[in-house]
């Protein structure tokens, strides 16, 4: 049991920060911790199976995504802090209406500086698909916000 605990703890230490940020991008900060806990709890419950997977972090992300109640309830995204006058006030609402994968790709790549390869590994999709999601997500954000291509 101790080996199992230690192994799982290592997995959490290595995976949780990425998982939490991806789920924050998916369902917003209000629900992200719950979703992260849901995914990791599933991993703990099915650890023998999860540990043998090729991409356990990606699998846990998909479990958390499928169980996230935010996909149903769509909680509001936090307002733009007043300390950021350079940011469009409508950005949170625009992010909220993006398709899931576009939002996750945009926030991870441009918000947290992930590489498309890192995003692709977690989402279980190709790098080119990630790039497409980022490009289309930015394009849609520009349309929603009325932002000109050159800023």
């Amino acid at each position, binding site marked *: 049991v101790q080996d199992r605990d230690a192994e799982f703890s290592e997995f959490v230490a290595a995976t949780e920060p990425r998982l939490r940020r991806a789920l924050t991008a998916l369902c917003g900060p209000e629900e992200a911790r719950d979703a992260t806990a849901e995914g990791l709890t599933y991993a703990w419950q099915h650890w023998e199976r999860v540990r043998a997977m090729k991409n356990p972090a990606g699998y846990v992300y998909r479990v958390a995504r499928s169980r996230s109640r935010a996909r149903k309830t769509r909680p509001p995204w936090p307002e*733009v802090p007043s300390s950021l006058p350079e940011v469009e006030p409508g950005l949170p609402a625009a992010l909220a209406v993006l398709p899931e994968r576009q939002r996750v790709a945009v926030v991870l790549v441009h918000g947290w500086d992930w590489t498309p390869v890192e995003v692709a590994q977690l989402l279980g999709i190709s790098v080119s698909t990630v790039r497409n999601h980022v490009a289309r997500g*930015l394009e849609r954000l520009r349309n929603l916000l009325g932002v000109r291509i050159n800023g």
Partner: protein
Amino acid sequence: MADLETQVRQYTKSALDHVEPVRADEITTTERLPRGPRGRARLAVAVAASALFVGGGALWIVSRHGGDKVRVTSQSGASPAPTHWTQTASLDTELSNIIAVRGGIVATGYGGIWFSSDARSWKNMLTPEQPGGSAPYVSDVVATSHGLVAVGTAAEPGTSHGVAAVWTSPDGRAWTRVRDSALEPSTPPIPSNNTSPDRSSIAAIVRGGPGLVAIGEVFSGTFNGPTLVTPCCTPTVWTSRDGSTWTRIDKAGDPGGRFVDAVGRNGTVVALASMVNGTDVSKSDDGAHWQHVGIVRGSVSSVAIHGNTIVAVGSIAAANRNGRAVIWTSRTGVTWRQVYAEPSARITDNKSVVSNGHWLVVVGYRGRFEVNTRGVMAISKDAKHWAEVRRDGDVFTSDAYLNSATAFGQGFVAVGTARTGAGTPSNPVQSHTVVFSSNLKSART
């Protein structure tokens, strides 16, 4: 304005990067709880910071407003205060909604439909057909002059996707599924390997309009390969005279919304739909024509009528990003007044509000997150002053959360989810449904 990529970076670092990490030991000592009812927003919440106690033969509520003491005369009145609760049943199933009907109580959820005449002995009356992907779910029941009508989501023959489902019963014991093409609309294609969206689903049903009004949604999204590239569903209303034949009113709500609950009063239905920035309130006299009348600045999970007041419970986002419990009231549905806001930094979740005309009962849970929670309950006579129900400080402590309550006779019955076990491989956590009752002796059975 900065360029868009910079704006995303600044917003992410400033507004999104504060979620507290989840530690491994939080996971290994607890277990995941069953999910809440499908289609019902589970929102953070409202439990009064006040205390309620019994002393000297009289019930006192210490108000959350300045600590004023309010003497409650209900001990000798027709409707005793629901302050004393006892567990009356434990069921190895998952039930999230409970409704008193003629001759008994009906409880519904992923476990189908269960019936009891006394809140103690329960029997499974219906197990819905299993869709290939998602679990069937019985979300709500209403009593009519013809009998009972239950709604939810069940199997669509030949596919893995669920469709809106209606069952009728003369007595709560024998149930028959209604087949009507209005409940099973044609929708855009859903990839066979994607089991997430149901083709249609019903979240709640109330009396009103031509007889019955059910609220839910129909899949209207577009897939690009396995990816859903547009919002999945459109708010939809179904109406019926008797529960046997149905008419569908497509696009009854804002495309970005999701119906969460409704109440009927004098034939008029007030429906609430969760939106990105609040909860829309709409009214209809016939179920077919809807008028947007107001907005609640928060996320509403449940709504009830108490006298001349509409009471909604839900949450707003707190400064610390946890959900902050809120209760709102409204006379007309147009303007809403926030009458309570949870001061606690803890995440709490209000799941249901019910009134018996004398008392309001709100149930939910409080905790850091779903794997570490306990049930909570608050009561009020006037919808303004709320008190948390405590019984020796621990009546609900072993229970993950309380899901729903119903007025039964002169008392109340509540249903919740409890867990046992330490959450270790040798002593795993087991979840089951628990039933609590208050003033059950005076209930008419």
